[in-house]
Every structure is written in C-alpha cells, then in structure tokens.
C-alpha cells in the first residue's frame, strides 16, 4: 500500500511540513527530512524550486530563488534523495510546478520518483482535466498519488469531481490567498471547514496555507485529518538555520 494511504488510516491528526529543497543550503535536503521525521512529523512535502512560483507568496518565492541560486535542479534533488528510503519511512511528497517536470519528461520524472520511494506529487498548475486526459495512467503505473487543491471558492460539484479523482487526501487551501499571507482563521474559515466536513468526502482533507502556530493548527485540524505548514517553517529556517527543527515542531503541537 502507498505510504500516504497507510498514514491516513492512523488514528491521529497529522502534521505535514513543506520545505524548499536547496534552501537554506544546497545540501540540507536529507538532513532536514531526517530531522523532521525524528521530530515526529507525519509527512513531508519536498519543494522542487521553480523560478516563477505563482501560487506562492514572497516567503516561498524567496526560498525558491535562493535554492535555484544555490544550484538546485531536478536531477540534483533526485540524486540527493536516492538513498532516502534506507533511513526515512514517513510519506514523502514532491511539491513543485509543472514546467520543470515537463522538461524532465513526465514519464521519466514519475519513474524516478517511484525508484526513490516518493509517494505522491502536488503540482498546483497541473489542472485536473489535463492530468486526467494525459498523465493519470503514468502516475498510476508508478503508484504516485496526485494531490489536488480545493479553495473556499471551489464549487461543491467541482469538489466532488476532485474527490472522485483523488486517492490519498485533498489539500484544502484555507482561504483565498497565496501561501504565507494570512494570520489566524476567522468565522469565514470555520464555516468553510465545517461545510467541507459535512460533505462526507471519501478522501481525508488536510488544510494548508495560513497555519503558523499551535492555535491555527488546532483550529485547522478540528474538522480535518491534518495540517500542512510551509511558509512559517521556511521563515523558521531563515531565522534559525536547519539545526533547530524540533524547536519549531514543538511550538506547533
């Protein structure tokens, strides 16, 4: 069974962290992943940096720019991760934008992920229709789960369509925003979380965007399976380097 599906069956709320591969230092990738697992994190999104990350705010745009300046490439990331499954057992997801994947070759990219032991992909600008028309068979062949996003503006009909097309979890964007832009959840978000919960979707939901402390983590996971933190963790890495990861995790839960 795919590690993401296994993880979703555990009887607990999940905390997943995103970081940009190649940031702050080019060769931090494996160390960060190991430290995250040792800190009790349930799942990791490894960010493949892109020059023009249009769904991200300034924090991740900046970490991506620096990672690329440091010399991160798709090939290098795969090289860094080649032995990761000898030591790390939690689900690993690669999150990036579609163009670098397209240039590597979608089939070759997926094959490499399978070889390394990557469990899923989040490609915000690979839309559902294109995925289904052109790439679903390739993802499935390599047992890679494609994770789709929904937002407060996504219609119920579209959410059901995404639920049907998914087989891992649904990435619930907490509010109408790019990453890293909101602080705290208000009534509008609570209503949205409850609305989605009441839809009884077949896939569990994990909330991302806007989670940066224990309070928002607790709010986000009240109605859902878990939460993803990205920008707040990148800020922590910027301010404290890669040696104090457990301090960050302890502040969240």
């Amino acid at each position, binding site marked *: 069974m795919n590690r993401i599906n296994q993880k979703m069956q555990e009887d607990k709320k999940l905390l997943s962290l995103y970081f940009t591969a190649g940031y702050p230092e080019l060769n931090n990738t494996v160390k960060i992943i190991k430290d995250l697992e040792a800190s009790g994190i349930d799942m990791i999104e490894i960010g493949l940096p892109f020059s023009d990350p*249009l769904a991200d705010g300034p924090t991740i745009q900046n970490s991506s720019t620096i990672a690329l300046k440091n010399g991160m490439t798709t090939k290098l990331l795969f090289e860094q991760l080649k032995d990761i499954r000898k030591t790390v057992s939690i689900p690993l997801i690669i999150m990036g934008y579609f163009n670098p994947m397209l*240039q590597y070759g979608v089939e070759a990219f997926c094959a490499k992920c399978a070889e390394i032991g990557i469990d899923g992909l989040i490609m915000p600008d690979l839309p559902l229709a294109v995925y289904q028309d052109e790439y679903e068979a390739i993802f499935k062949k390599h047992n890679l789960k494609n994770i789709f996003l929904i937002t407060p503006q996504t219609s119920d009909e579209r959410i059901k369509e*995404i639920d049907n097309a998914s087989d891992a979890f649904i990435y619930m964007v907490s509010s109408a925003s790019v990453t890293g832009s909101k602080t705290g959840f208000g009534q509008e978000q609570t209503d949205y979380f409850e609305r989605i919960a009441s839809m009884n979707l077949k896939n569990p939901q994990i909330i991302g965007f806007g989670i940066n402390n224990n309070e928002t983590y607790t709010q986000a996971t009240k109605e859902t399976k878990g939460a993803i933190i990205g920008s707040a963790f990148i800020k922590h890495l910027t301010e404290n380097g890669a040696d104090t990861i457990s301090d960050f995790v302890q502040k969240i839960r």
Partner: protein
Amino acid sequence: MNYNVTEKGYYGTFGGAYIPEMLYPNVENLRKNYLKVMAEPDFKAEFDQLLKDYVGRPSPLYFAKRLSEKYNTKVYLKREDLNHTGAHKVNNTIGQILMAKKLGKQRIIAETGAGQHGVATATVCALMGMDCVVYMGEIDIARQAPNVARMKMLGAEVRPALSGSKTLKDATNEAIRDWINNPVDTHYIIGSAIGPHPYPDMVTRFQSIISEEIKWQLKEKEGRENPDYVVACIGGGSNAAGTYYHFLHEEEVGIIAVEAAGKGINSGESAATSALGKEGVIHGCKTLLMQTNDGQITEPYSISAGLDYPGVGPLHAHLYKSGRGEFYSATDDEAMQSGLELTKLEGIIPAIESSHALAIFKHKTFKPDDVVVISLSGRGDKDLDNYIKYFNL
C-alpha cells in the same frame, strides 16, 4: 490546417489552461461566458461605439510612399499608433473592461512592462469609474517614469513587482497572485495574447478589429481585400494576433512575425522566443518558452520593454511550428535604425516595438507589386529617451 482555438483552448499542441485551482472559478466563469457576452448586441454596440468615438477608429491604413520607393514594393502602415493612448493595447482594454462589467466585477488588475498596457487599462478604468491596480516590475518603473505618472494621474495604483527579475514576467506573477488573493470582485485584464484559455482567444478577438479594418480599407485602395503579406512585431503577440486574425485562413496572405533579437540571437541577451524557446508552461499556457534545460524560465532581453517577454502567445507558437508564419528577428540596432528611417522618410516616430516590424526590410526582399501591410502598433513618444540616448540626439 485550423488556426482557431479548440474547445479545450488549444492551437495545435499549444495553449490550454495550466492554472492553480485557486484561479479555476474565475477562469472557468470567463471561459463559459466570453463568447456569449461578446455576441450580445448591447455589448457589441457599446464596444463599437467606444472604439469609434473614444479610441478614434478606424485607424488609417496609410500608403507609405517614400518607404515603398526605398524598398521597391507597396508598403501600407496600419496606424494603431494613432489610437487614443498611443497603441493597439486600448482595443483590448475597452473590450475587457466591458466584459468585466458584464461579469459583475468592480476591481481591475493588470500587468505592464513598458507601461502601455498599464496606461490603456488605467484609462478605461477612469472611463468606467472602476478601481485599478497595475503591477509593474520595479526596474520598469524606474525606466518608464512618464507612463507611471500617467497611470497615477488616471487614478490607478501602481504596485512594484519586487520578485525575480523585477520586469514584465514578474509583474505578471504578481498580478496572478493578486487575483488568487481577490477571487470574487476582481477581473484580471491580461494585455497580451497569452495566459490561460480563454485569454489568448479573447484578446485576439478584441484585437481582430485591426485585420477587419485592413480588409475593407485595402479593398478601397487596392481593389482587393487580401494583401500579399501582413507583418507585425511579436512579444506576447497581441497586435500580431489582431493583424493576422482575418487572414489566418487566407492562404495567399503571407504571415510574417518579427521578434526581438536583442543584442543577437546567440548573444545571451535576446527575446527571440521562437528561435530560443522550447515547449513549456508559463503563466497558465503551454507555449514556446525561453528556459533552462531544467525548466526554469530565463530572463529575456530587448531594448524594447514591450517585447521583453520569455514566452509567446500560443497562437503564434502554433503558427511557427506549423510553418504558417514566417518568423524573423531584429536586433536592437536594426530596430533603432528602422525606427529612425521611418521618421525621416514618412514623418512618423514609431514605438521601438513597432520598429522591429519595420526591420523586416533588412531580412526580406519583396517583389515590386507585392502589397505589404505592416502593423504600426504604437507611437514613439514613450521611447524618446531611448532614441535620444541611442542616437545621441
């Protein structure tokens, strides 16, 4: 061969809507409605009336006698430079602001490079009393001060794009981010024939007034609707798309595109996307794109801020790949010389973008009885500083 967009938004293998889910409701709403709205009689009437009384259309099709003599062929200039605000851009912003009103939006955002699209957007927002935010790269803000002042005077807020290369590509990223953050009340007026479907088709249709007029104007002057060639410069490609549109399926009309070679195609400082680009995804569409082997988008360069874009509209990528279009590129030097030449021969100072189209004569020889229509997409007022510096005037 079909050069119209397909149901799913493709021109051949190019186009589509590669957008994050956050943009889906807005883009889908636009896709479902744009053709219906454009066909409504009251929409058409208002669009046509504004083009006539506000923009000053039809723009003249001018027989350039001395230029024709110099190159021993018949050259007509389509005078988009005479439009209100000084370029073809306003054809599209008029169309899109009427579209935004029909869709119930109250706030407008736009990206701009040289500031021409920003000015055209700020202008129609003033006209319609709508809020307007224009994203512009920090570097472009510094080098296009008069257009920044114009936008402010027109009531727009100009927000600097501080990320990446701080130019047009990054201004577009910031506008997209704004739309993600403001999904309900805002319409994004994209200025070129780029972006996710239906933008390339919608922008092309609003700009297609250019070739629609060329047809009847040429009929009056030459007794035939179809020229032998239509020539336009291409950055993203909105003036080119409008200039070609009604000739795409007229096989006897040659379609010529001139891209910006910058300091030379192989100089590392160029914006000649068809020569240097590979298929990729930028700003929501699959097209030819200047990028590294690893799929990171590279920085283009051209003396002309309006052609300084690493991609090209998907229609043009299709015209290039299918062979329907002849693609050339002109260097900064060739464009500047051609701009000065038009000024001296015809008394018209062209925008540096349009000067690239005029540089076709440095690359191709036409027959004496060929009728060549060149899109003079904008006027050169905004470029005076560049001309002054370049020629030490």
